[in-house]
């Protein structure tokens, strides 16, 4: 029998339906793989083996009685930003301590209702603030990919580094992730996996630890475009418990992957060509354009002229919202409490010891830009610039059906390479952050390898609520690219 862990989600569900193997066998295979790989990769911070085995057994019984759900028996990894009933949820911050939710997030509840099984909780940057997974209180994740034969440890990207690394290393069939400025798509691009951030409001934020509420969206990281469509189908949907959740009906995302792209108009924005971008990424982008032309698309140059202001605007809006969201961590309800001379002193000491350096920096920036005298100059101006960016997209989408860009300005970099310079770290998200500000669906998929053998990704951005076009174009690119490379399993 082939290694069960190397199957795609679609193949694994098919194999279980044909009784070639059971969910119990599949789950055991993944738990075995995690045991070998995790000491090297640090992708999982909690492995819920017993729960997973029990769920798999129940799932096999459900399938045998003809009641299989769409994801019946599929073992998944869950980013530790999603509250999971009875399983510790930390957002990889010390300040949450051993917080164990008594409720399940809507997204994970949707997945489990469809038959999915949780293998464990995945590592991330603290409160999802980071682009390299180095801000996690549980230590960084290591990218399963290496530069040729070198043993330099590379970042899997962030914040969903555990999600991306576990999918790339065959430690789950797919994983949940979240994306506030690129936290699904940048790690997907760094690890040769597929990640989609849907339209803002498609997935309920209920039960997801909040970072920046007007930007946060959940989405899957998966092995193929089709797998990501199947996972999103289950994760998304209207939820009355999230007032920004969209009431719109869900289209059939998997079917959209089969749709022809002939006659579609694809926009290529001039402004996504940045200084210092490796030639290989330019080449990949040009190659992507050729692939879509060959598939019958028309290419149109477009201008998204406020692109360069997206990151600075984001670094006002996101920290402002974060400073407000994180005000709830006061040591009274979560984690370790550090005493002080009075109540305010206890708050101050608790927060100073519970939050890591990057989170503290962002709380201070957020507090500063919202403080009296600076609100108009910074926060209000950033919200207006955000409107300009959204308007650029609205104008462009009058003429095009989808937009093609590179996913990241570089391949995965070494751990420690950028951790001393916040601004150079922030620049990682230069191509992804615009879709968050405008609330648009965007997918990153692997399309080529650089000279060191590292994966490089393309990004497809769609109109609001038009994930179908994103899936159709991405599936066409996936087919043309034929990206089959996998990270060598050097940890075995």
């Amino acid at each position, binding site marked *: 029998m082939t290694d069960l862990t190397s199957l795609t989600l679609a193949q694994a569900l098919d194999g279980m339906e044909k009784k070639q193997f059971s969910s119990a066998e599949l789950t055991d295979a993944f738990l075995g793989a995690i045991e070998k790989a995790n000491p090297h990769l640090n992708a999982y911070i909690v492995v819920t083996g017993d729960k997973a085995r029990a769920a798999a057994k129940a799932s096999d019984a459900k399938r045998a009685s003809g009641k299989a759900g769409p994801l019946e028996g599929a073992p998944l990894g869950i980013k530790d930003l999603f509250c999971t009933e009875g399983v510790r949820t930390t957002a990889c911050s010390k300040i949450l301590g051993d917080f164990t939710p008594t409720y399940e997030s809507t997204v994970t509840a949707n997945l489990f209702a469809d038959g999915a099984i949780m293998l464990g909780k995945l590592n991330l940057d603290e409160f999802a603030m980071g682009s390299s997974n180095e801000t996690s209180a549980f230590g960084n994740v290591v990218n399963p990919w290496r530069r040729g034969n070198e043993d330099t440890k590379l970042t899997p990207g962030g914040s969903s580094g555990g999600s991306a690394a576990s999918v790339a290393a065959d430690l789950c069939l797919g994983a949940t992730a979240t994306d506030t400025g690129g936290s699904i798509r940048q790690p997907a691009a760094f690890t040769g996996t597929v990640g989609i951030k849907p339209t803002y409001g498609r997935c309920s934020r209920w039960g997801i630890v909040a970072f920046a509420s007007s930007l946060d969206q959940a989405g899957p990281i998966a092995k193929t475009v089709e797998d990501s469509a199947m996972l999103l189908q289950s994760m998304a949907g209207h939820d009355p418990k999230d007032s*920004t959740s969209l*009431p719109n009906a869900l289209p059939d995302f998997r079917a959209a992957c089969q749709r022809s792209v002939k006659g579609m108009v694809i926009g290529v924005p001039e402004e996504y060509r940045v200084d210092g971008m490796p030639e290989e990424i330019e080449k990949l982008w040009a190659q992507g354009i050729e692939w879509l032309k060959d598939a019958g698309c028309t290419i149109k140059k477009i201008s998204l002229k406020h692109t360069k202001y997206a990151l600075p605007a984001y*670094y006002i809006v996101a920290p402002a919202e974060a400073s407000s969201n994180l005000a709830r961590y006061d040591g009274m309800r979560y984690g370790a409490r550090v005493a002080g001379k009075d109540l305010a002193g206890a708050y101050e000491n608790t927060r100073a010891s519970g939050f890591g350096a990057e989170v503290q920096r962002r709380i201070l920036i957020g507090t500063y830009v919202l403080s009296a005298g600076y609100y108009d100059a910074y926060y209000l101006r950033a919200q207006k610039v955000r409107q300009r960016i959204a308007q650029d997209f609205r104008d462009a989408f009058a003429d095009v059906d989808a937009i093609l860009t590179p996913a990241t300005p570089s391949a995965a970099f070494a751990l420690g390479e950028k951790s001393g310079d*916040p601004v150079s770290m922030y620049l990682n998200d230069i191509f992804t952050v615009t879709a968050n500000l405008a609330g648009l669906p965007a997918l990153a998929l692997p399309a080529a390898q650089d000279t060191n053998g590292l994966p490089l990704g393309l990004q497809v951005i769609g109109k609001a609520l038009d994930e179908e076009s994103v899936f159709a174009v991405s599936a066409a690119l996936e087919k043309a690219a034929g990206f089959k490379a996998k990270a060598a399993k050097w940890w075995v």
Partner: protein
Amino acid sequence: MSIDEKTVRRVAKLARLSLPEERVAPMAGELNAIMAWIEQLNEVDVEGVEPMTSAVEGLSLPMREDVVTDGETPSAC
């Protein structure tokens, strides 16, 4: 606008974060580096532009029926 040490102390107080004295000067430096990069937003013409407060367009905050519920019980929402 540059952030001096006094401002760092004031903002840390507002954010309820105790900042050890030896961290104040380095933090001012870190914040200034980030804010200097953010200053480029001043190049954008935002005259007459409505601030964007939500990524969801054309949807007003949903209202629930004005009936008695179990309040905080999530399953009863």
